[in-house]
């Protein structure tokens, strides 16, 4: 079963299910993967920088999917979707802080984490918009500051993307129009 992450949300997962998010334009998807623990996180961010830089206002949504698991075996809390409050994790910097917090609470070490960036397009090439580019630059900068390696990028251009992320393998699959 895939777990959909909506615009402005993040999710952290330590089970066998994939995280998916679709219709990514100027938004930026950030994935974090810990190959040792085989846990992962995905953020569907919208804007580069929080005006207040406040990260205390996180509202957790549920996430136990154990009752829906086909056999219930070894499937505990699979995903924790964090903060449907779009004013928080819609920002790249806040989303990365929140993902790191959740990953570290599950035992992840920053030196082990691998990041991937997907999105940051400008869907209307004739219209001058830097939102996508700024999202990418902000994420690179923030990840560098936090000591996280970026191991893959599929960013820029003028096309929409859909993303599927496997937390057990770290593989990110990106779908485009054709």
């Amino acid at each position, binding site marked *: 079963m895939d777990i959909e992450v909506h*615009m402005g949300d993040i999710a952290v997962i330590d089970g066998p299910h994939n995280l998916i998010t*679709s*219709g*990514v*334009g*100027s*938004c930026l998807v950030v994935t974090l993967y810990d190959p040792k623990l085989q846990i992962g996180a995905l953020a569907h961010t*919208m*804007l580069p920088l929080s005006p207040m830089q406040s990260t205390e206002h996180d509202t957790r949504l549920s996430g136990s999917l154990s009752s829906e698991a086909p056999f219930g075996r070894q499937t505990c809390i699979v995903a924790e979707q964090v903060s449907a409050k*779009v*004013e928080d994790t*819609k920002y790249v910097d806040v989303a990365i802080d929140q993902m790191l917090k959740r990953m570290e609470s599950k035992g992840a070490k920053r030196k082990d984490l691998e990041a991937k960036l997907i999105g940051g*397009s*400008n*869907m*209307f*090439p*004739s*219209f001058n*918009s830097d*939102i*996508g580019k700024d999202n990418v630059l902000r994420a690179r900068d923030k990840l560098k500051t936090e000591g996280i390696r970026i191991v893959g990028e599929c960013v820029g251009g*003028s*096309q*929409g*993307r*859909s993303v599927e992320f496997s937390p057990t393998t770290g593989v990110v699959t990106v*779908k485009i*129009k054709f």
Partner: protein
Amino acid sequence: MENKLQEVNEQAAVNASDALSKLIDRQVEVEISRTEVKKVEDLSPLIGPEEIVAGIYLPVTGDINGAALLIFPKETAFVLSDLLVKREPGTTHKLSELDTSALKEVGNIISGNYLTILSNVLQIKIIEHIPNFSFDMFGAIVSQIITAFAQNTEKALVIEIEFTFKPETFKGYFLLLFELEQFKAMLGSLVGVAGGGVKAFLETS
């Protein structure tokens, strides 16, 4: 306000019908079959996020900042392109530059008519800018517009219009997004005579 919106819709449909009939050189009737006011975060369920659509985006400035976005599902864009460039029906399977240009012109006509009438009815200055085109996933197109709003406001007013070209029944969506606070201020004098959903929306937002 709803009466005002109704008035705007009716006039815009008549004017767009005339203008498109001239463009296509056959009788076209644009019917605005549905108008809804939504919060911006409720917009996405309109069409599936991965569905491929033609999106024509026109930035709006003046007394109020906003965006006009015309959406045609892929097949509708192909049928409409056949009509616009006078090809045999069913010919278009990929949009050429000519098709894109023709669809942008439709965007200009629909948006221009609507915004001119809105401007006249509400007595405000609305400037429509040149159309920008994208043929891609609905979610990716709309989210870029939403994101531009999210920089300035948490909420926006979305006027969603479904329209039909008769005798064919292509459906398209015309979305108008305005920053809610600006829109509320502008409508201050009109809300007093308004009724129903729009007024309730504005009061509770």
